[in-house]
């Protein structure tokens, strides 16, 4: 059961909070240990980051929170932060004697939930439990929101949503309202009892992750969705929510990898900023991916790139494999854009495996380097597959790029789903997530096409999709594969220009996350994810994206997104094509 892995629900929370302290300074280590013990926490100290990671990996679910110094000799504190976030999803607090704004900002970007300055007072440590609690609540809420979305989605296409309601009672479908409402509800109805968090912390062991990646590959990146993955993985105690959030992180990872690849391969001088592995919001948009030559209006997509090198991908897509989503076919089909689209797209999808440099991403797809290829302890799956997937996405993007970005919402076809197919082959699903996100973006921009679902290449899709302001219905499914899905979020991609890369990126990620592979044909309705409609949109996709939806993200570009008739899309509600 999902709660099975949740160790010792503490009745006297926050007492007994299990803290891991990492600091190379022995004096501080001892002081912190004493302070934390005085707060009635269970403390483990460590002076080496590597050692700390081993401890975390060995004792899965053995810690609730990690406190780490920024400057350590063996490993940068930020890197450790990323690892922890990705592999264990624990809240991490950074500390340093240096309180420069830039450092603090970097910490936040990398996902730190707090940044303390030395000398640290005991009262600051006393309240660190709030981060643990907040995370649980947040996850619970996400789950609930997801549930809501699911219900809506269910209504529309009567699919899944079968087992979701177990944890949270989804009030009713109409409760898809804003997350806020969901939050309120959650607060009310949930016994805000930290010790009985519904969500058990799952530790993603190498094995588990392997299973996950395998499942994702099997399903096809495009079609991936937490439920499907969960079913395939066949791990009884794992919940859909666990999978969903992991998928999200995986996507980020892919993006990061992508970026790194891009960076390596392309010399566009994009600097790769550290990509917080799980930092959705900050997807490292620090470096716009300029490599791409896509002129497309996708300039706004500056994906930090990870040079996706998907050389093959592009080909595939062009091929027009129509039915084969062969990994990147979709994107490329009919894409007038330079073949490098794949590259650019790929980047975005941050398929981890994408080794192919995106050198030319079409449109400036921001390639998110989502994953740190080296750092991930995830086993890894041959990237090739992922790449392919990316490619498909990429293609999409290309085509999209080409399309003039219009203010309207481009129906983003989830071509990506098609590309997903290719993904399935690639075990390294991680990238998928990312890829999906990325691709989505470009798609939007140019996507003017109607939603014809010609699966084959995104290019086609692009053409076929009529760009209707309100008709973007994203195929949730393809989200996974198609980063375009992320376009969902990016409603505003139309206005990509206006949207910051970050937003796009975020969107993509979100979208890409769980997009189920929806056939291009119809699912290309993008639900404009509007912050408000967050709920709704989620329902659209069968993907477990909801989790990924970070309202904050969406909120970021809401203005652009909805600029004109975009809202019409929303009005249409979940459009499940």
């Amino acid at each position, binding site marked *: 059961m999902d709660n099975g892995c949740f160790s010792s629900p503490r009745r006297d929370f926050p007492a007994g909070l299990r803290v891991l302290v990492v600091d190379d*300074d022995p004096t*501080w280590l001892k002081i912190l240990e004493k*302070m934390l013990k*005085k707060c009635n926490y269970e403390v483990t100290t460590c002076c080496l980051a590597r050692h700390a990671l081993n401890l975390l990996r060995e004792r899965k679910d053995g810690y609730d929170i990690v406190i780490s110094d920024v400057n350590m000799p063996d490993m940068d504190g930020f890197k450790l932060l990323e690892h922890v976030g990705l592999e264990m999803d624990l809240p991490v607090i950074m500390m340093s004697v240096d309180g420069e704004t830039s450092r603090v900002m970097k910490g936040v970007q990398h996902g730190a939930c707090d940044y303390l300055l030395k*000398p640290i007072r005991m009262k600051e440590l006393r309240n660190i439990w709030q981060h643990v609690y907040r995370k649980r609540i947040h996850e619970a809420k996400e789950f609930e929101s997801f549930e809501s979305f699911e219900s809506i989605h269910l209504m529309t296409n009567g699919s899944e949503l079968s087992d979701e309601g177990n944890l949270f009672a989804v009030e009713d479908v109409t409760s898809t309202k804003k997350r806020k409402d969901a939050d309120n509800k959650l607060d009310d109805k949930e016994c805000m009892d930290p010790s009985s968090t519904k969500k058990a912390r799952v530790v993603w062991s190498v094995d588990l992750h392997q299973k996950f990646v395998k499942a994702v590959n099997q399903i096809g990146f495009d079609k991936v969705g937490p439920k499907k993955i969960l079913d395939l993985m066949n791990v009884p105690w794992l919940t859909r929510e666990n999978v969903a959030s992991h998928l999200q992180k995986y996507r980020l990872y892919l993006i990061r990898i992508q970026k790194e690849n891009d960076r390596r391969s392309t010399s566009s001088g994009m600097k790769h900023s550290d990509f917080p592995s799980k930092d959705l919001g900050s997807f490292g948009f620090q470096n716009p991916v300029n490599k791409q030559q896509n002129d497309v209006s996708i300039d706004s997509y500056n994906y930090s790139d990870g040079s996706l090198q998907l050389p093959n991908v592009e080909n595939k897509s062009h091929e027009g494999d129509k039915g084969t989503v062969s990994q990147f076919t979709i994107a490329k089909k009919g894409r007038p854009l330079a073949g490098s689209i794949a590259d650019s797209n790929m980047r975005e999808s941050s398929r981890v495996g994408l080794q192919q440099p995106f050198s030319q991403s079409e449109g400036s797809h921001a390639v998110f380097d989502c994953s740190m290829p080296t750092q991930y302890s995830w086993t890894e799956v041959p990237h090739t597959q992922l790449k392919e997937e990316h490619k498909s996405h990429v293609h999409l993007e290309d085509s999209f790029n080409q399309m003039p970005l219009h203010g309207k919402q481009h129906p983003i076809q989830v071509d990506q789903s098609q590309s997903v197919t290719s993904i399935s082959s690639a075990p390294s699903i991680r990238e998928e997530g990312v890829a999906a996100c990325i691709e989505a973006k470009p798609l939007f921009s140019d996507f003017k096409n109607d939603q014809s679902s010609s699966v084959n290449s995104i290019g086609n899709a692009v053409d076929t999709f009529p760009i209707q302001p309100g008709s973007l219905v994203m195929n949730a499914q393809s989200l996974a594969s198609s980063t375009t899905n992320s376009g969902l979020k990016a409603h505003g991609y139309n206005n990509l220009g206006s949207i910051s890369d970050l937003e796009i990126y975020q969107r993509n990620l979100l979208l890409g996350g769980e997009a189920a592979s929806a056939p291009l044909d119809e699912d290309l309705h993008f639900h404009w994810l509007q912050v408000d409609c967050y709920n709704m949109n989620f329902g659209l996709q069968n993907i477990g994206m909801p989790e990924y939806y970070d309202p904050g993200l969406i909120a970021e570009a809401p203005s652009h997104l909805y600029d004109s008739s975009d809202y019409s899309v929303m009005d249409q509600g979940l459009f499940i094509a």
Partner: protein
Amino acid sequence: MDKTHSRRQVAAIKHSLFDQGYLDEQFIQLEELQDDANPNFVEEIVTLYYRDSSRLISNLDHALERNPLDFNKLDTIMHQFKGSSSSIGAKKVKAECTLFREYCRTRNGEGCRRSFQQMKKEYATLRKKLETYFQLARQAGPQETAFPPK
């Protein structure tokens, strides 16, 4: 009484350490952490600090002998030293560290050396005073913990 006198002396030394700016409230924090489980906590921490800081000072000495000076490295070591000094509340020493780092930033080798000398002096003074303090404190017997706050 002897003990009372000792205790008064200890209090006086502590008072002067704070007054003269050698220590800041972090030291008080350490004292508050001292309890039955760790009756000599403060002294243990300070001893750890001595060990760590000696090592860092020696590193700095070596680094300052090099020619040309590697300011980044100097800054890194000093950053560590500052962090360490903040752990016991060594106020003056910390201030000197900041100054040193500023000289590193401006690539002022002479300034670095001067600042380093000054810092070593402050450090030596503090260390001496603390040693006296702890010696007397041991003689005077546990003060705060005499009546353990419950």
